[in-house]
Protein backbone atom coordinates (compact mmCIF):
# COMPACT_ATOMS: atom_id res chain seq x y z
CA UNK A 1 0.00 0.00 0.00
CA UNK A 2 2.76 2.37 0.92
CA UNK A 3 4.57 1.70 -2.36
CA UNK A 4 1.45 2.56 -4.33
CA UNK A 5 0.96 5.81 -2.47
CA UNK A 6 4.59 6.77 -2.90
CA UNK A 7 4.68 6.14 -6.62
CA UNK A 8 4.52 9.26 -8.76
CA UNK A 9 2.82 8.87 -12.12
CA UNK A 10 5.35 8.67 -14.93
CA UNK A 11 4.83 9.35 -18.60
CA UNK A 12 4.44 5.65 -19.20
CA UNK A 13 1.35 5.56 -16.98
CA UNK A 14 -0.28 8.22 -19.08
CA UNK A 15 0.67 6.48 -22.29
CA UNK A 16 -0.78 3.20 -21.06
CA UNK A 17 -3.95 4.97 -19.93
CA UNK A 18 -4.19 6.58 -23.36
CA UNK A 19 -3.71 3.22 -25.07
CA UNK A 20 -6.42 1.67 -22.91
CA UNK A 21 -8.84 4.53 -23.63
CA UNK A 22 -8.05 4.26 -27.35
CA UNK A 23 -8.73 0.53 -27.18
CA UNK A 24 -12.05 1.03 -25.40
CA UNK A 25 -13.04 3.55 -28.04
CA UNK A 26 -12.01 1.29 -30.93
CA UNK A 27 -13.87 -1.71 -29.49
CA UNK A 28 -16.86 0.52 -28.82
CA UNK A 29 -17.09 1.59 -32.45
CA UNK A 30 -17.00 -2.03 -33.53
CA UNK A 31 -19.53 -3.51 -31.07
CA UNK A 32 -22.03 -0.73 -30.29
CA UNK A 33 -24.94 -0.21 -32.67
CA UNK A 34 -26.28 3.19 -31.71
CA UNK A 35 -24.80 5.79 -34.11
CA UNK A 36 -24.51 8.35 -31.32
CA UNK A 37 -22.58 5.97 -29.08
CA UNK A 38 -20.33 4.90 -31.95
CA UNK A 39 -19.65 8.54 -32.53
CA UNK A 40 -18.84 9.13 -28.85
CA UNK A 41 -16.39 6.24 -29.06
CA UNK A 42 -14.58 7.99 -31.91
CA UNK A 43 -14.35 11.10 -29.76
CA UNK A 44 -12.91 8.93 -26.99
CA UNK A 45 -10.26 7.65 -29.39
CA UNK A 46 -9.32 11.18 -30.46
CA UNK A 47 -9.07 12.32 -26.86
CA UNK A 48 -6.95 9.31 -25.95
CA UNK A 49 -4.54 10.46 -28.65
CA UNK A 50 -4.66 13.96 -27.19
CA UNK A 51 -3.63 12.54 -23.84
CA UNK A 52 -0.64 10.79 -25.43
CA UNK A 53 0.35 13.99 -27.20
CA UNK A 54 0.31 15.97 -23.96
CA UNK A 55 2.15 13.28 -22.02
CA UNK A 56 4.84 12.94 -24.67
CA UNK A 57 5.21 16.72 -25.05
CA UNK A 58 5.59 17.04 -21.27
CA UNK A 59 8.25 14.33 -21.24
CA UNK A 60 10.25 15.92 -24.04
CA UNK A 61 9.72 19.49 -22.85
CA UNK A 62 8.45 20.36 -26.34
CA UNK A 63 5.50 22.68 -26.83
CA UNK A 64 4.66 21.26 -30.26
CA UNK A 65 2.73 18.28 -28.96
CA UNK A 66 0.59 20.44 -26.70
CA UNK A 67 -0.39 22.84 -29.49
CA UNK A 68 -1.28 19.86 -31.66
CA UNK A 69 -3.98 19.01 -29.11
CA UNK A 70 -5.75 22.28 -29.84
CA UNK A 71 -5.81 21.50 -33.55
CA UNK A 72 -7.21 18.07 -32.82
CA UNK A 73 -9.90 19.58 -30.59
CA UNK A 74 -10.93 21.94 -33.37
CA UNK A 75 -11.13 19.03 -35.81
CA UNK A 76 -13.15 17.01 -33.31
CA UNK A 77 -15.55 19.91 -32.87
CA UNK A 78 -16.01 20.19 -36.63
CA UNK A 79 -16.62 16.45 -36.80
CA UNK A 80 -19.26 16.74 -34.06
CA UNK A 81 -21.15 19.33 -36.08
CA UNK A 82 -21.12 17.30 -39.27
CA UNK A 83 -21.72 13.97 -37.57
CA UNK A 84 -24.67 15.15 -35.52
CA UNK A 85 -26.07 16.83 -38.64
CA UNK A 86 -26.01 13.54 -40.53
CA UNK A 87 -27.38 11.55 -37.57
CA UNK A 88 -30.20 14.06 -37.01
CA UNK A 89 -31.17 13.99 -40.68
CA UNK A 90 -31.42 10.19 -40.53
CA UNK A 91 -33.23 10.14 -37.16
CA UNK A 92 -35.76 12.67 -38.40
CA UNK A 93 -36.71 10.30 -41.18
CA UNK A 94 -36.56 7.09 -39.14
CA UNK A 95 -36.74 7.63 -35.35
CA UNK A 96 -34.83 5.23 -33.12
CA UNK A 97 -32.69 3.87 -35.90
CA UNK A 98 -29.57 1.81 -35.14
CA UNK A 99 -26.59 1.10 -37.33
CA UNK A 100 -28.06 -2.33 -38.15
CA UNK A 101 -31.25 -0.77 -39.52
CA UNK A 102 -29.29 1.51 -41.83
CA UNK A 103 -28.43 -1.25 -44.23
CA UNK A 104 -30.09 -0.66 -47.56
CA UNK A 105 -26.64 -0.80 -49.16
CA UNK A 106 -25.13 -4.24 -49.38
CA UNK A 107 -24.10 -6.80 -51.95
Amino acid at each position, binding site marked *: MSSLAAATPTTTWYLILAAVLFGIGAVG*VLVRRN*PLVMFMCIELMLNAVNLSFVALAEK*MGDIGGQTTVF*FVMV*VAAAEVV*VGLGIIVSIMRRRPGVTADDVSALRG
Partner: protein
Amino acid sequence: MNDTVQYPSIDWLAITPLIILLAGMMLNLVLAALTRPWPRAWYALGTVELALATVIVEMVLWNDIGRDGSRVVINDALSIDHFTALSWIAIAAALALVSLSTADYLRREQLDGPEVYALYICAALGAMIMTAANDMVVLFLGLETLSIALYVLAASHRRRTESQESGLKYFILGGFASAFFLYGIALLYGTTGTTNVSRMADVLRDEVFLKGDDAMLLAGVALLLVGLAFKVAVVPFHFWTPDVYQGAPTPVTSFMASVGKVAAFAAMARILLVALPTRIDDWRPVVWVLAVLSVVVGSALAVVQTDVKRMLAYSSISHAGFIMMGIEAAGHAGDEDGLPAVLLYLVIYSVLVIGTFTVVSLVSRTGDSGSDLGWFRGLGRQRPALALAMTVFLLAQAGMPTTSGFIAKFGVINSAAANESYAIAIIAMVASVIAAVLYLRIMVSMWLSDPEVGDDLREKVVVPVTANVVITLSTIFTLLVGVFPGWLIDAARTAASFAG
Protein backbone atom coordinates in the same frame (compact mmCIF):
# COMPACT_ATOMS: atom_id res chain seq x y z
CA MET B 1 8.81 45.15 -25.01
CA ASN B 2 10.30 42.16 -26.63
CA ASP B 3 8.29 40.35 -29.22
CA THR B 4 8.09 36.85 -27.81
CA VAL B 5 6.12 35.35 -30.67
CA GLN B 6 8.14 34.63 -33.76
CA TYR B 7 5.98 34.48 -36.81
CA PRO B 8 7.19 32.29 -39.66
CA SER B 9 7.84 34.03 -42.93
CA ILE B 10 5.23 33.11 -45.50
CA ASP B 11 5.94 32.48 -49.16
CA TRP B 12 2.70 33.91 -50.47
CA LEU B 13 3.43 33.25 -54.13
CA ALA B 14 3.94 29.54 -53.57
CA ILE B 15 0.57 29.12 -51.88
CA THR B 16 -1.42 31.29 -54.33
CA PRO B 17 -3.49 28.30 -55.55
CA LEU B 18 -4.63 27.61 -51.98
CA ILE B 19 -5.53 31.26 -51.45
CA ILE B 20 -7.48 31.39 -54.72
CA LEU B 21 -9.57 28.38 -53.73
CA LEU B 22 -10.11 29.58 -50.16
CA ALA B 23 -11.21 33.04 -51.35
CA GLY B 24 -13.45 31.46 -53.97
CA MET B 25 -15.11 29.24 -51.39
CA MET B 26 -15.74 32.18 -49.04
CA LEU B 27 -17.10 34.27 -51.91
CA ASN B 28 -19.38 31.42 -52.94
CA LEU B 29 -20.82 31.06 -49.44
CA VAL B 30 -21.25 34.82 -48.88
CA LEU B 31 -22.87 35.40 -52.26
CA ALA B 32 -25.14 32.39 -51.81
CA ALA B 33 -26.29 33.74 -48.46
CA LEU B 34 -26.75 37.35 -49.47
CA THR B 35 -28.05 37.32 -53.03
CA ARG B 36 -31.07 35.83 -54.71
CA PRO B 37 -30.56 32.30 -56.02
CA TRP B 38 -28.72 32.36 -59.32
CA PRO B 39 -29.35 29.84 -62.07
CA ARG B 40 -27.70 26.65 -60.76
CA ALA B 41 -25.29 26.39 -63.68
CA TRP B 42 -23.66 29.71 -62.73
CA TYR B 43 -22.27 28.31 -59.51
CA ALA B 44 -20.81 25.40 -61.45
CA LEU B 45 -19.24 27.73 -64.00
CA GLY B 46 -17.81 29.87 -61.20
CA THR B 47 -16.24 26.81 -59.61
CA VAL B 48 -14.84 25.68 -62.96
CA GLU B 49 -13.27 29.10 -63.52
CA LEU B 50 -11.79 29.00 -60.03
CA ALA B 51 -10.33 25.56 -60.68
CA LEU B 52 -8.97 26.61 -64.07
CA ALA B 53 -7.38 29.69 -62.49
CA THR B 54 -5.70 27.34 -60.00
CA VAL B 55 -4.44 25.11 -62.80
CA ILE B 56 -3.04 28.08 -64.72
CA VAL B 57 -1.33 29.62 -61.67
CA GLU B 58 0.12 26.23 -60.81
CA MET B 59 1.48 25.82 -64.35
CA VAL B 60 3.22 29.19 -64.01
CA LEU B 61 4.59 28.12 -60.63
CA TRP B 62 5.83 24.86 -62.22
CA ASN B 63 8.50 26.90 -64.04
CA ASP B 64 9.31 28.83 -60.87
CA ILE B 65 9.93 25.60 -59.02
CA GLY B 66 12.15 24.45 -61.86
CA ARG B 67 14.16 27.68 -61.62
CA ASP B 68 14.30 28.18 -57.86
CA GLY B 69 14.39 24.53 -56.91
CA SER B 70 11.99 22.78 -54.62
CA ARG B 71 11.75 24.06 -51.06
CA VAL B 72 9.77 23.91 -47.85
CA VAL B 73 7.86 27.03 -46.84
CA ILE B 74 6.01 28.44 -43.81
CA ASN B 75 8.20 27.05 -41.05
CA ASP B 76 8.75 23.89 -43.11
CA ALA B 77 5.05 23.02 -42.99
CA LEU B 78 4.43 22.81 -46.74
CA SER B 79 6.72 21.49 -49.45
CA ILE B 80 6.67 23.30 -52.73
CA ASP B 81 8.05 20.89 -55.30
CA HIS B 82 7.03 19.42 -58.63
CA PHE B 83 5.32 16.53 -56.84
CA THR B 84 3.05 19.03 -55.11
CA ALA B 85 2.56 20.98 -58.33
CA LEU B 86 1.48 17.97 -60.39
CA SER B 87 -0.88 16.77 -57.64
CA TRP B 88 -2.39 20.24 -57.36
CA ILE B 89 -2.96 20.41 -61.11
CA ALA B 90 -4.60 16.97 -61.04
CA ILE B 91 -6.84 17.93 -58.10
CA ALA B 92 -7.88 21.26 -59.63
CA ALA B 93 -8.60 19.63 -62.99
CA ALA B 94 -10.69 16.97 -61.26
CA LEU B 95 -12.53 19.73 -59.36
CA ALA B 96 -13.37 21.46 -62.66
CA LEU B 97 -14.61 18.25 -64.30
CA VAL B 98 -16.68 17.14 -61.30
CA SER B 99 -18.28 20.59 -60.92
CA LEU B 100 -19.33 20.48 -64.55
CA SER B 101 -20.87 17.05 -64.21
CA THR B 102 -22.61 18.12 -60.99
CA ALA B 103 -24.32 21.08 -62.69
CA ASP B 104 -27.13 19.20 -64.37
CA TYR B 105 -27.17 16.46 -61.74
CA LEU B 106 -28.38 19.07 -59.25
CA ARG B 107 -30.94 20.39 -61.73
CA ARG B 108 -32.24 16.89 -62.47
CA GLU B 109 -32.48 15.93 -58.81
CA GLN B 110 -33.77 19.39 -57.81
CA LEU B 111 -31.16 19.89 -55.11
CA ASP B 112 -29.68 23.15 -53.88
CA GLY B 113 -26.72 24.55 -55.70
CA PRO B 114 -24.16 26.76 -54.02
CA GLU B 115 -23.29 24.78 -50.88
CA VAL B 116 -22.35 21.70 -52.85
CA TYR B 117 -19.77 23.67 -54.82
CA ALA B 118 -18.45 25.32 -51.66
CA LEU B 119 -17.97 21.85 -50.21
CA TYR B 120 -16.23 20.64 -53.38
CA ILE B 121 -13.83 23.56 -53.20
CA CYS B 122 -13.28 22.99 -49.47
CA ALA B 123 -12.54 19.32 -50.07
CA ALA B 124 -10.16 20.15 -52.92
CA LEU B 125 -8.40 22.64 -50.67
CA GLY B 126 -7.94 19.99 -47.99
CA ALA B 127 -6.68 17.55 -50.61
CA MET B 128 -4.13 20.08 -51.87
CA ILE B 129 -2.89 20.75 -48.33
CA MET B 130 -2.54 16.98 -47.83
CA THR B 131 -0.42 16.52 -50.92
CA ALA B 132 1.87 19.39 -49.97
CA ALA B 133 2.04 18.84 -46.22
CA ASN B 134 5.56 18.47 -44.86
CA ASP B 135 4.30 18.30 -41.29
CA MET B 136 2.13 15.47 -40.04
CA VAL B 137 -0.20 17.77 -38.12
CA VAL B 138 -0.76 19.88 -41.25
CA LEU B 139 -1.33 16.64 -43.13
CA PHE B 140 -3.94 15.61 -40.56
CA LEU B 141 -5.69 18.97 -40.86
CA GLY B 142 -5.75 18.67 -44.66
CA LEU B 143 -7.08 15.13 -44.36
CA GLU B 144 -9.88 16.24 -42.06
CA THR B 145 -10.75 19.24 -44.25
CA LEU B 146 -11.10 16.84 -47.17
CA SER B 147 -12.93 14.15 -45.20
CA ILE B 148 -15.42 16.32 -43.33
CA ALA B 149 -16.44 18.03 -46.57
CA LEU B 150 -16.81 14.60 -48.19
CA TYR B 151 -19.03 13.28 -45.34
CA VAL B 152 -21.47 16.11 -45.98
CA LEU B 153 -21.28 15.68 -49.75
CA ALA B 154 -21.97 11.94 -49.47
CA ALA B 155 -25.10 12.66 -47.44
CA SER B 156 -26.11 15.65 -49.57
CA HIS B 157 -28.96 14.01 -51.54
CA ARG B 158 -31.61 14.64 -48.92
CA ARG B 159 -34.40 12.66 -50.55
CA ARG B 160 -32.42 9.44 -50.99
CA THR B 161 -32.13 7.27 -47.90
CA GLU B 162 -29.12 5.54 -49.44
CA SER B 163 -27.28 8.84 -49.64
CA GLN B 164 -27.70 9.50 -45.93
CA GLU B 165 -26.77 5.94 -45.10
CA SER B 166 -23.62 6.31 -47.15
CA GLY B 167 -22.85 9.61 -45.40
CA LEU B 168 -23.25 8.00 -41.97
CA LYS B 169 -21.12 4.97 -42.83
CA TYR B 170 -18.42 7.10 -44.38
CA PHE B 171 -18.47 9.40 -41.38
CA ILE B 172 -18.16 6.68 -38.73
CA LEU B 173 -15.49 4.70 -40.56
CA GLY B 174 -13.66 7.82 -41.73
CA GLY B 175 -13.53 9.15 -38.17
CA PHE B 176 -12.36 5.73 -36.97
CA ALA B 177 -9.54 5.76 -39.55
CA SER B 178 -8.58 9.34 -38.70
CA ALA B 179 -8.19 8.39 -35.05
CA PHE B 180 -5.78 5.57 -36.02
CA PHE B 181 -3.86 7.93 -38.25
CA LEU B 182 -3.61 10.50 -35.47
CA TYR B 183 -2.46 7.90 -32.96
CA GLY B 184 0.26 6.94 -35.43
CA ILE B 185 1.38 10.57 -35.58
CA ALA B 186 1.42 10.76 -31.76
CA LEU B 187 3.62 7.66 -31.48
CA LEU B 188 6.03 8.88 -34.15
CA TYR B 189 6.16 12.22 -32.37
CA GLY B 190 6.93 10.39 -29.15
CA THR B 191 9.81 8.51 -30.77
CA THR B 192 11.39 11.26 -32.82
CA GLY B 193 10.35 14.41 -30.96
CA THR B 194 9.00 16.13 -34.05
CA THR B 195 5.98 16.01 -36.32
CA ASN B 196 7.86 17.54 -39.22
CA VAL B 197 8.34 15.03 -42.03
CA SER B 198 11.83 16.06 -43.13
CA ARG B 199 13.13 16.58 -39.58
CA MET B 200 11.72 13.19 -38.65
CA ALA B 201 13.77 11.67 -41.47
CA ASP B 202 16.90 13.38 -40.12
CA VAL B 203 16.28 12.08 -36.61
CA LEU B 204 15.65 8.55 -37.86
CA ARG B 205 18.91 8.66 -39.80
CA ASP B 206 20.82 8.96 -36.51
CA GLU B 207 22.75 5.89 -35.55
CA VAL B 208 20.75 5.35 -32.37
CA PHE B 209 17.65 4.78 -34.43
CA LEU B 210 19.31 2.83 -37.19
CA LYS B 211 20.46 0.25 -34.68
CA GLY B 212 17.49 0.27 -32.33
CA ASP B 213 14.33 -1.67 -33.09
CA ASP B 214 11.96 0.73 -31.43
CA ALA B 215 8.58 -0.81 -30.74
CA MET B 216 6.85 2.57 -30.42
CA LEU B 217 8.19 3.69 -33.79
CA LEU B 218 7.01 0.51 -35.50
CA ALA B 219 3.59 0.76 -33.84
CA GLY B 220 3.37 4.36 -35.05
CA VAL B 221 4.23 3.40 -38.62
CA ALA B 222 1.69 0.57 -38.51
CA LEU B 223 -1.09 2.86 -37.24
CA LEU B 224 -0.25 5.48 -39.86
CA LEU B 225 -0.47 2.81 -42.55
CA VAL B 226 -3.84 1.60 -41.21
CA GLY B 227 -5.22 5.15 -41.28
CA LEU B 228 -3.98 5.83 -44.79
CA ALA B 229 -5.04 2.40 -46.07
CA PHE B 230 -8.60 3.20 -44.92
CA LYS B 231 -8.51 6.47 -46.80
CA VAL B 232 -7.20 5.02 -50.06
CA ALA B 233 -9.47 1.97 -49.64
CA VAL B 234 -7.13 -0.99 -50.00
CA VAL B 235 -7.98 -4.50 -48.80
CA PRO B 236 -8.48 -5.31 -45.89
CA PHE B 237 -9.54 -1.73 -45.07
CA HIS B 238 -11.89 -1.41 -48.02
CA PHE B 239 -15.26 -2.58 -46.69
CA TRP B 240 -16.78 0.92 -46.55
CA THR B 241 -16.02 1.64 -50.21
CA PRO B 242 -18.82 -0.22 -52.05
CA ASP B 243 -21.56 1.06 -49.74
CA VAL B 244 -20.32 4.63 -49.75
CA TYR B 245 -19.67 4.71 -53.50
CA GLN B 246 -23.08 3.25 -54.24
CA GLY B 247 -25.04 5.47 -51.87
CA ALA B 248 -23.36 8.80 -52.46
CA PRO B 249 -24.65 11.04 -55.26
CA THR B 250 -22.81 9.85 -58.39
CA PRO B 251 -20.80 13.04 -59.07
CA VAL B 252 -19.68 12.98 -55.42
CA THR B 253 -18.57 9.38 -55.90
CA SER B 254 -16.42 10.47 -58.82
CA PHE B 255 -14.96 13.22 -56.64
CA MET B 256 -14.09 10.74 -53.88
CA ALA B 257 -12.53 8.32 -56.32
CA SER B 258 -10.43 10.98 -58.04
CA VAL B 259 -9.49 13.75 -55.61
CA GLY B 260 -9.65 11.56 -52.51
CA LYS B 261 -7.32 8.94 -53.98
CA VAL B 262 -4.83 11.48 -55.37
CA ALA B 263 -4.59 13.21 -52.00
CA ALA B 264 -4.33 10.09 -49.87
CA PHE B 265 -1.78 8.38 -52.12
CA ALA B 266 0.32 11.53 -52.41
CA ALA B 267 0.33 11.83 -48.62
CA MET B 268 1.19 8.15 -48.26
CA ALA B 269 4.07 8.44 -50.72
CA ARG B 270 5.43 11.50 -48.97
CA ILE B 271 5.27 9.98 -45.48
CA LEU B 272 6.77 6.65 -46.51
CA LEU B 273 9.46 7.96 -48.84
CA VAL B 274 10.45 11.23 -47.15
CA ALA B 275 9.96 10.53 -43.45
CA LEU B 276 10.64 6.79 -43.34
CA PRO B 277 13.22 5.96 -46.04
CA THR B 278 15.40 4.44 -43.32
CA ARG B 279 12.59 2.05 -42.40
CA ILE B 280 11.94 0.70 -45.90
CA ASP B 281 12.46 -2.89 -44.80
CA ASP B 282 9.75 -2.48 -42.18
CA TRP B 283 6.99 -0.96 -44.31
CA ARG B 284 7.63 -2.41 -47.75
CA PRO B 285 6.38 -5.93 -46.94
CA VAL B 286 3.18 -4.43 -45.52
CA VAL B 287 2.63 -2.40 -48.68
CA TRP B 288 3.35 -5.53 -50.73
CA VAL B 289 0.64 -7.49 -48.92
CA LEU B 290 -1.89 -4.65 -49.17
CA ALA B 291 -1.17 -4.28 -52.90
CA VAL B 292 -1.56 -7.99 -53.67
CA LEU B 293 -4.73 -8.36 -51.59
CA SER B 294 -6.27 -5.27 -53.21
CA VAL B 295 -5.66 -6.25 -56.82
CA VAL B 296 -6.90 -9.79 -56.24
CA VAL B 297 -9.87 -9.20 -53.92
CA GLY B 298 -10.91 -5.99 -55.73
CA SER B 299 -10.97 -7.67 -59.14
CA ALA B 300 -12.59 -10.88 -57.93
CA LEU B 301 -15.40 -9.21 -55.97
CA ALA B 302 -16.05 -6.68 -58.74
CA VAL B 303 -16.99 -9.48 -61.11
CA VAL B 304 -19.84 -10.82 -58.94
CA GLN B 305 -21.62 -7.48 -58.41
CA THR B 306 -24.81 -6.52 -60.22
CA ASP B 307 -24.80 -2.81 -59.47
CA VAL B 308 -22.50 -0.80 -61.72
CA LYS B 309 -21.56 1.68 -59.00
CA ARG B 310 -20.56 -1.21 -56.72
CA MET B 311 -18.60 -2.82 -59.56
CA LEU B 312 -16.72 0.40 -60.11
CA ALA B 313 -16.14 0.70 -56.35
CA TYR B 314 -14.47 -2.73 -56.30
CA SER B 315 -12.59 -1.89 -59.47
CA SER B 316 -11.34 1.27 -57.72
CA ILE B 317 -10.04 -0.99 -54.93
CA SER B 318 -8.16 -3.03 -57.48
CA HIS B 319 -6.79 0.17 -59.06
CA ALA B 320 -5.66 1.28 -55.59
CA GLY B 321 -3.79 -2.03 -55.40
CA PHE B 322 -1.98 -1.19 -58.64
CA ILE B 323 -0.99 2.20 -57.25
CA MET B 324 0.28 0.48 -54.08
CA MET B 325 2.46 -1.65 -56.36
CA GLY B 326 4.12 1.54 -57.57
CA ILE B 327 4.72 2.64 -53.98
CA GLU B 328 6.14 -0.80 -53.20
CA ALA B 329 8.50 -0.43 -56.15
CA ALA B 330 9.50 3.05 -55.00
CA GLY B 331 10.43 1.46 -51.66
CA HIS B 332 13.44 -0.29 -53.21
CA ALA B 333 16.72 1.53 -52.72
CA GLY B 334 17.74 3.63 -55.70
CA ASP B 335 14.48 3.07 -57.54
CA GLU B 336 13.48 5.75 -60.07
CA ASP B 337 10.46 4.15 -61.74
CA GLY B 338 8.04 3.63 -58.89
CA LEU B 339 7.09 7.17 -57.97
CA PRO B 340 6.59 8.45 -61.56
CA ALA B 341 4.41 5.40 -62.18
CA VAL B 342 2.30 6.23 -59.10
CA LEU B 343 1.79 9.84 -60.21
CA LEU B 344 1.02 8.82 -63.76
CA TYR B 345 -1.53 6.28 -62.56
CA LEU B 346 -3.20 8.81 -60.26
CA VAL B 347 -3.57 11.48 -62.96
CA ILE B 348 -4.82 9.02 -65.58
CA TYR B 349 -7.19 7.22 -63.21
CA SER B 350 -8.72 10.50 -61.94
CA VAL B 351 -9.80 11.52 -65.42
CA LEU B 352 -10.97 8.00 -66.27
CA VAL B 353 -13.07 7.57 -63.17
CA ILE B 354 -14.73 10.97 -63.56
CA GLY B 355 -15.65 10.13 -67.15
CA THR B 356 -17.01 6.72 -66.16
CA PHE B 357 -19.09 7.97 -63.26
CA THR B 358 -20.47 10.85 -65.34
CA VAL B 359 -21.90 8.29 -67.77
CA VAL B 360 -23.23 6.24 -64.83
CA SER B 361 -24.82 9.38 -63.43
CA LEU B 362 -26.65 10.01 -66.72
CA VAL B 363 -27.81 6.39 -66.99
CA SER B 364 -29.04 6.41 -63.37
CA ARG B 365 -31.75 8.84 -64.52
CA THR B 366 -33.95 10.96 -62.26
CA GLY B 367 -33.71 9.83 -58.64
CA ASP B 368 -30.14 8.55 -59.15
CA SER B 369 -31.24 4.98 -58.56
CA GLY B 370 -30.85 3.26 -61.94
CA SER B 371 -27.27 2.15 -61.49
CA ASP B 372 -28.10 -1.55 -61.75
CA LEU B 373 -26.54 -3.36 -64.70
CA GLY B 374 -29.99 -3.83 -66.26
CA TRP B 375 -30.41 -0.09 -66.71
CA PHE B 376 -27.48 -0.10 -69.12
CA ARG B 377 -29.32 -2.50 -71.43
CA GLY B 378 -29.84 -1.03 -74.85
CA LEU B 379 -27.75 2.06 -74.24
CA GLY B 380 -25.85 1.27 -77.45
CA ARG B 381 -29.01 1.61 -79.52
CA GLN B 382 -30.48 4.54 -77.68
CA ARG B 383 -27.36 6.66 -77.20
CA PRO B 384 -24.56 5.21 -79.34
CA ALA B 385 -22.15 8.09 -78.70
CA LEU B 386 -22.57 7.83 -74.93
CA ALA B 387 -22.17 4.06 -75.04
CA LEU B 388 -19.04 4.49 -77.17
CA ALA B 389 -17.52 6.90 -74.67
CA MET B 390 -18.33 4.49 -71.83
CA THR B 391 -16.70 1.69 -73.83
CA VAL B 392 -13.53 3.76 -74.18
CA PHE B 393 -13.45 4.42 -70.42
CA LEU B 394 -14.06 0.77 -69.58
CA LEU B 395 -11.43 -0.48 -72.03
CA ALA B 396 -9.00 2.03 -70.56
CA GLN B 397 -9.75 0.83 -67.02
CA ALA B 398 -9.13 -2.70 -68.23
CA GLY B 399 -5.73 -1.59 -69.54
CA MET B 400 -6.29 -1.83 -73.29
CA PRO B 401 -3.37 -0.54 -75.41
CA THR B 402 -3.85 2.85 -77.16
CA THR B 403 -5.80 4.06 -74.11
CA SER B 404 -4.37 5.88 -71.12
CA GLY B 405 -5.15 2.95 -68.80
CA PHE B 406 -2.54 0.84 -70.59
CA ILE B 407 0.14 3.46 -69.99
CA ALA B 408 -0.81 3.59 -66.31
CA LYS B 409 -0.80 -0.17 -65.78
CA PHE B 410 2.33 -0.66 -67.88
CA GLY B 411 4.08 1.96 -65.70
CA VAL B 412 3.46 0.22 -62.38
CA ILE B 413 4.02 -3.32 -63.66
CA ASN B 414 7.20 -2.17 -65.36
CA SER B 415 8.45 -0.56 -62.16
CA ALA B 416 7.66 -3.72 -60.20
CA ALA B 417 9.53 -5.85 -62.73
CA ALA B 418 12.47 -3.42 -62.78
CA ASN B 419 12.86 -4.05 -59.04
CA GLU B 420 12.59 -7.80 -59.52
CA SER B 421 9.23 -8.00 -57.74
CA TYR B 422 8.14 -10.52 -60.35
CA ALA B 423 5.58 -12.19 -58.09
CA ILE B 424 3.57 -9.03 -57.63
CA ALA B 425 3.82 -8.16 -61.33
CA ILE B 426 2.43 -11.56 -62.34
CA ILE B 427 -0.35 -11.46 -59.74
CA ALA B 428 -1.33 -7.99 -60.97
CA MET B 429 -1.48 -9.11 -64.59
CA VAL B 430 -3.66 -12.10 -63.72
CA ALA B 431 -5.92 -9.88 -61.63
CA SER B 432 -6.30 -7.39 -64.44
CA VAL B 433 -7.47 -10.21 -66.71
CA ILE B 434 -10.09 -11.14 -64.09
CA ALA B 435 -11.14 -7.50 -63.82
CA ALA B 436 -11.54 -7.34 -67.61
CA VAL B 437 -14.54 -9.66 -67.24
CA LEU B 438 -16.30 -7.00 -65.22
CA TYR B 439 -15.74 -4.28 -67.79
CA LEU B 440 -16.84 -6.67 -70.54
CA ARG B 441 -20.08 -7.39 -68.65
CA ILE B 442 -21.02 -3.71 -68.72
CA MET B 443 -20.08 -3.47 -72.40
CA VAL B 444 -22.10 -6.56 -73.30
CA SER B 445 -25.07 -5.11 -71.44
CA MET B 446 -24.78 -1.83 -73.36
CA TRP B 447 -24.25 -3.22 -76.85
CA LEU B 448 -25.43 -6.83 -77.10
CA SER B 449 -28.21 -7.51 -74.58
CA ASP B 450 -31.65 -8.03 -76.05
CA PRO B 451 -34.28 -5.52 -74.95
CA GLU B 452 -36.71 -6.84 -72.36
CA VAL B 453 -40.32 -6.05 -71.64
CA GLY B 454 -40.64 -2.68 -69.94
CA ASP B 455 -37.45 -1.21 -71.34
CA ASP B 456 -39.47 1.16 -73.53
CA LEU B 457 -41.27 2.58 -70.52
CA ARG B 458 -38.04 3.74 -68.96
CA GLU B 459 -37.12 7.37 -68.93
CA LYS B 460 -34.89 8.24 -71.87
CA VAL B 461 -31.24 8.94 -71.09
CA VAL B 462 -30.66 12.67 -71.50
CA VAL B 463 -27.17 14.02 -72.19
CA PRO B 464 -26.99 17.67 -71.09
CA VAL B 465 -24.34 20.04 -72.46
CA THR B 466 -22.14 20.18 -69.36
CA ALA B 467 -22.01 16.40 -68.96
CA ASN B 468 -21.27 16.19 -72.67
CA VAL B 469 -18.27 18.48 -72.19
CA VAL B 470 -16.95 16.36 -69.30
CA ILE B 471 -17.34 13.09 -71.21
CA THR B 472 -15.80 14.53 -74.39
CA LEU B 473 -12.81 15.99 -72.55
CA SER B 474 -12.23 12.77 -70.60
CA THR B 475 -12.44 10.67 -73.78
CA ILE B 476 -10.01 12.96 -75.60
CA PHE B 477 -7.58 12.82 -72.67
CA THR B 478 -7.88 9.04 -72.43
CA LEU B 479 -7.13 8.49 -76.10
CA LEU B 480 -4.56 11.28 -76.39
CA VAL B 481 -2.49 9.97 -73.50
CA GLY B 482 -2.96 6.45 -74.84
CA VAL B 483 -1.43 7.35 -78.19
CA PHE B 484 0.99 10.14 -77.20
CA PRO B 485 1.96 9.41 -73.58
CA GLY B 486 5.42 11.02 -73.73
CA TRP B 487 4.55 14.47 -72.37
CA LEU B 488 2.67 13.12 -69.36
CA ILE B 489 5.38 10.56 -68.58
CA ASP B 490 7.97 13.35 -68.73
CA ALA B 491 5.88 15.48 -66.38
CA ALA B 492 5.51 12.57 -63.97
CA ARG B 493 9.27 11.91 -64.06
CA THR B 494 10.01 15.57 -63.33
CA ALA B 495 7.48 15.53 -60.51
CA ALA B 496 8.91 12.44 -58.84
CA SER B 497 11.17 14.21 -56.39
CA PHE B 498 10.46 15.64 -52.98
CA ALA B 499 11.51 18.85 -51.26
CA GLY B 500 12.95 18.76 -47.77
